[in-house]
């Protein structure tokens, strides 16, 4: 793992055990996200891009199961394999080191809690010590350092897991703590360019428009300053003008917060405008990874080429890719794109091509560029 890579997915295999059969959703996926870059994960339905991102957070829902491979996440102490992490470490990682935002923002916000409640929940889970210390400082500054409230905070700081503390903290007033958290929430909402954050804090999800809800979701994801942000098609359901605003926001996040972003989409326009590097997925495999200029300028894999050609162009019309995405139950042998590929050779039917570096920093899995015999 190089110095720069912050998340590396190596040879990931994920299966879904359904009544209809075993769906081999991911078949040896290799993706690496570098520090401070925006990596675009492009693919159609069934390509496995959402499953890949869920695997990084170990959130793959049953009947899905991770069957092989490793996901290395860079930590201060070196790298750690997510698949081998304990539940506690995973819980600490989610939300704090790696956060995720989703496609339909209102589905991921709890309709019975206000915006403020939801963002403060995330914050309190991961940054509680910090807030307690701040609250104590404020109390001491106002010369109320020996009140019941302050003592409660001290107890909570010292031994957060004791039964006594857990009981007390449900009963006691925590005004100072709450006001500290509220200030942070307003700050984070402002950083996602929400106008009038104090008013939005008190709103419920159904009162928000699509763009606002997505910003709130991004704010929730950023609440604990994660190093990695995974965005699963966050702008697909939004209007194109709102999408432009959110894309701009994501660019700002990269600049100001230095986050690394894994951006999943099927829209090649968004990829071209936003991403630094691109990984193209098809039917459970990554077929090509390269710099964004390389992918658009000189695509190597036939699927990437066909995808670029199918973008509607007023002068040239639209060229479609014949056939449909193959089923993933009892998947076909060899390269999964072979039935729709205009360059298919005999070896493509038998063995799957391996992922090779065809140019510096440019990887493709295709027998046109060599490969194992």
């Amino acid at each position, binding site marked *: 793992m190089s110095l720069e890579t912050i998340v590396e997915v190596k040879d990931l295999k994920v299966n879904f055990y*359904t*009544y*209809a059969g075993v769906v081999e959703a991911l078949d040896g996926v290799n993706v690496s996200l570098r520090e401070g870059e925006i990596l675009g994960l492009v693919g159609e339905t069934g390509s496995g891009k959402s499953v890949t991102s869920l695997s990084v957070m170990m959130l793959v829902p049953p*009947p899905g199961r991770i069957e092989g491979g490793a996901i290395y996440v860079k930590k201060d102490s070196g790298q750690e394999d997510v698949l081998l992490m304990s539940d506690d470490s995973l819980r600490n990682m989610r939300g704090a080191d790696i956060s995720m935002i989703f496609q339909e923002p209102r589905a991921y916000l709890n309709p019975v809690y206000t915006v403020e409640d939801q963002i403060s929940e995330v914050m309190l889970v991961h940054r509680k010590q910090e807030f307690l210390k701040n609250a104590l400082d404020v109390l001491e500054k106002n010369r109320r350092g020996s009140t019941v409230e302050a003592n409660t905070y001290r107890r909570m700081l010292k031994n957060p897991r004791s039964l006594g503390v857990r009981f007390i903290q449900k009963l006691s007033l925590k005004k100072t703590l709450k006001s500290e958290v509220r200030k942070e929430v307003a700050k984070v909402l402002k950083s996602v360019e929400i106008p009038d954050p104090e008013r939005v804090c008190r709103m419920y999800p159904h009162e928000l428009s699509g763009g606002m809800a997505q910003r709130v979701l991004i704010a929730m994801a950023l609440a604990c300053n994660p190093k990695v942000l995974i965005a699963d098609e966050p702008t697909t359901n939004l209007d194109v003008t709102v999408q432009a605003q959110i894309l701009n926001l994501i660019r700002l996040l990269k600049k100001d917060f230095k986050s690394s972003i894994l951006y999943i989409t099927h829209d090649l326009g968004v990829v071209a405008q936003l991403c630094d590097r691109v990984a193209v997925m098809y039917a459970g495999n990554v077929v090509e990874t390269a710099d964004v200029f390389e992918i658009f300028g000189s695509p190597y894999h036939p699927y990437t080429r066909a995808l670029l050609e199918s973008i509607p162009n007023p002068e040239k019309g639209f060229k479609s890719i014949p056939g449909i995405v193959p089923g993933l139950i009892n998947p076909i042998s060899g390269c999964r794109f072979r039935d729709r590929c205009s360059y298919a050779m005999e070896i493509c039917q038998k063995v799957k091509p391996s992922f090779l570096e065809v140019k510096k920093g440019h990887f493709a899995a295709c027998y046109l560029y060599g490969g194992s015999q």
Partner: protein
Amino acid sequence: MTMRSRFEELKVSMRPRVKEWKFMFLRIRKNSLALAGLIIVLFFAAIAMLAPVLAPPPPGSLDSFKIPNDPEIHVLTPNPTPPTLRHIFGTTDQQYDLYYACIWGTLTAFRTGLTVVGISLIVGLLVGTLAAYYGGMLDEVLMRFTDIIIAFPGLILAMALVIAFPAKIPINLSMLFVVMFALVSFVLLALRPSKKLLLVVQALLVLSLLSILYYPLTYDLNLSRLDKVLISITLVGWPGYTRVIRGEVLRVKNEDYIEASRASGSTDFGTIVKHIWPNTVYPILIVATLDIGSIVLSAAALSFIGIGAEPDFADWGQIIQRSRAWMSRPEQLIGNLHTFLIPGMFITSFVMGWNLLGDALRDVLDPTLRRR
């Protein structure tokens, strides 16, 4: 395209549905509780169908549901006798044969359950669909009426109705037909079906109006006590189905394919029959299956209180009612356990079988679990 005979055509068109049913049965087979429920229900169904063979009515009896008393012992001992070779389950007081009662009681139980559920389903389907599909004032009125009935405690209202129903109801058939055809034509006017159907109904309406004036038809409806129980439970039970169906229809009503059906030119009636009902029927089947058990239980409860079937009618609740007199003191109780335990076990296993089946159906037909 080869020429296909009609039969082949049918086979091909049913193939995907058959595949779905096979899938469902596979799931039932895998769930052992469900299988148990199915076996219990089938077992009771077999008993009911084979009742004349298993417990042949005594020669010369006019009504097979009348439990025979054993003539020899009857006069000598009015007390219940425990099981002997002659009376396999024993007898209850007045020497009524328990075995006969339980076997024919199965038939009565099925009759009770299926009739009540059947009629409630039909009424609930009509009222619920109309209320949900048309909404507005019609929905409000129908639902308030339904709510009024639900507001009453069910069993108590059923008791009151059973007592209040006269045994003999003289019905003015002509008036009934007038009301019926008037209602039907109103409903049809709303749904706008083919002209022919409407004409036929209106012709019948006119005919019945004429018959009132010139040749009124009357009919004296004789209600047996069991019939009164069935009617009362139906009257109390139909609002439950209405609510379930209304909820389902509301959910389906806003789907795109309903609007697409309207865009294709379907009438309201066509849309309801072809699209709404097939998509809403599954939860209702589940409710109905679970309900059969509780309806039989309610009927047995009414009989136990004494307002149910006639004294010598073959009905489980009725038989248990007879044993009430023999349960007051401990020494009496122990000797006469068979008088209520055996029919009680019949009731328990019958209800449990249906409940298990209903649960199984719910698991099998739950759409979120289906395709995983």
